[in-house]
């Protein structure tokens, strides 16, 4: 029989171990991705990788320029933001301020939205939305494009935006809102002059975390963004975002080839993106606060 003191010490040891493990995992992810990504620059110049629009990894005289892929990611993300942030903004205000009886119902549907498997949405968009685009939008020459991917990604990112923005708005002290209302100021002005300025950093935090989700989404852009490694000139052009490139090509890539290193380097870029976004979000929120999911 181990003494109680000793047992407590062992348990506490495990608690500290578990606490350290998260940090170790993050360090491990950085280490392994850099380990398999950095060898790329022994064979391809830094400048070519970031500025060349030519992604021809499987040719004899292969080129590894991710500029077009990067623009692909940015354009899909940009359009998704345009679609989803205004909508999320409106419904988070509705949820936080106007809804009373319907709130629980709406909240539970929003939460369910976040659980929708992206592969299912991708399969839907591939079959139905692309057909609708071809039939109804004359200027669209292909059904798989930035527009289609952004539409589906909006559905996926809305729950993150709505939940986090609502939290930010609800965190505004009640007394301030009541104070404004008691002065005879309308709800509309109170919302735009008192609530939103107060909730500003929380709303920014929500935006950054949501945008991070959009950039990292893989299956939807793999299935419906169009797959063309070109620099787009309009929202109905197809693109090949960074995540889709990894998922689409990894299985057929020789271990230890330049192509393999290049895909890992793309992984490194995604990792750096998401880390930066998370750090900015933490700064806005005040460091030491855990992100709510």
């Amino acid at each position, binding site marked *: 029989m181990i003494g109680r003191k000793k047992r407590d010490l062992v348990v506490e040891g495990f608690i500290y171990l578990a606490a350290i493990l998260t940090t170790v995992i993050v360090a491990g992810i950085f280490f392994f991705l850099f380990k398999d990504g950095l060898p790329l620059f022994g064979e391809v110049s830094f400048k070519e990788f970031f500025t060349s629009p030519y992604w021809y990894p*499987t040719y004899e005289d292969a080129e590894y320029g991710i500029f077009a892929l990067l623009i692909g990611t940015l354009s899909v993300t940009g359009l998704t933001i345009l679609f989803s942030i205004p909508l999320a903004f409106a419904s988070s205000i509705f949820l936080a301020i106007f809804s009373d009886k319907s709130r629980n119902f709406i909240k539970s549907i929003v939460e369910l939205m976040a659980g929708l498997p992206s592969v299912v949405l991708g399969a839907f968009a591939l079959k139905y939305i*692309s057909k609708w685009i071809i039939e109804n939008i004359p200027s669209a020459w292909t*059904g798989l494009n930035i527009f289609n991917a952004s539409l589906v990604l909006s559905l996926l990112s809305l729950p993150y935006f709505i939940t986090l923005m609502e939290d930010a708005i609800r965190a505004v002290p009640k007394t301030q809102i009541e104070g404004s209302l008691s002065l005879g100021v309308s709800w509309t002005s109170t919302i735009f002059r008192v609530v939103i300025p107060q909730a500003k950093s929380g709303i920014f935090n929500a935006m950054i975390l949501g945008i991070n989700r959009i950039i990292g989404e893989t299956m939807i852009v793999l299935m419906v963004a169009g797959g063309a490694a070109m620099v787009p000139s309009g929202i109905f052009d197809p693109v090949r975002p960074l995540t889709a490139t990894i998922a689409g*090509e990894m*299985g057929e*890539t020789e271990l230890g080839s330049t*192509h393999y290193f290049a895909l890992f380097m793309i992984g490194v870029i995604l990792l750096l993106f998401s880390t930066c976004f998370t750090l900015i979000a933490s700064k806005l929120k005040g460091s030491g606060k855990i992100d709510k999911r």
Partner: protein
Amino acid sequence: MKKIIALALISLVLVGSLVASTIVIKGSNTVYPIAQLWAEDFKAMNPEVEISIEGAGSSTGYKALLEGQADIADASRWIKSKEVVAMNEAGKLFVPFIVAYDGIAVIVNPELGIENITIEQLGEIYSGKLGSWKNLDDSLDNKRIVVYSRDNASGTYEYFTETVLGDERLAPQVQMLPSTNAIVEQVSQNKYAIGYIGMGYLTDTVTGLAVEGVLPTVANVNSGTYPISRPLFMWVDGTNGLPEGKVMDFIKYALTPEGQARTLDAGYVNAYGIE
């Protein structure tokens, strides 16, 4: 406690490897549909054998064979020079079997109204030189040709682009999709689209073009007149001679007339005689 866990883990591995007479097939997903049919048949004949089909591409197959993690590697392309180097360094020898042929059909929307195309025209379309259908044929609409391709890492892509483009590059605006089904779906929706797929995926929603006047049919692939078809492989580790037992029985079954007849069920073309 830790020792017990370690022991339990080790015994799990041992038991797993003793009990299981599992044939592990890894590699190209082009080969899956036919590999699955053979696996089903083989399992029906040998109920004690288990088969698993894994992997996400030809490269994963060669890699797994090298590391001894697979008994059979599926491939839709020939082994690459780097893979040969790795094989030599490991002192191994892989042996290929041609198990079927894959005829690649060029498809357009039925409403477009063309039925024939040449390799040269395909080359001009896929390199981006022919921007509009009118440039191909004056009777066609002056509309942008919407070009679809398989992902640039797939064996099908490599074979097709080599055949129609030679050394030239695919135009950047060509849309690379991860799946054959997506290409069929898009071409059936879009009047001005063109794509290429495995013959087995042809449906009546798209038109399979005659290439150089030859229709994509089983007979034409078999006789060698259809210009775009390629072999599908299964590789085994032959370092110490051909493997014995169930692995070889599986390949033997695949190459019997019965097994070869199954290639047609999966939409491919038999490599050996059926009758």
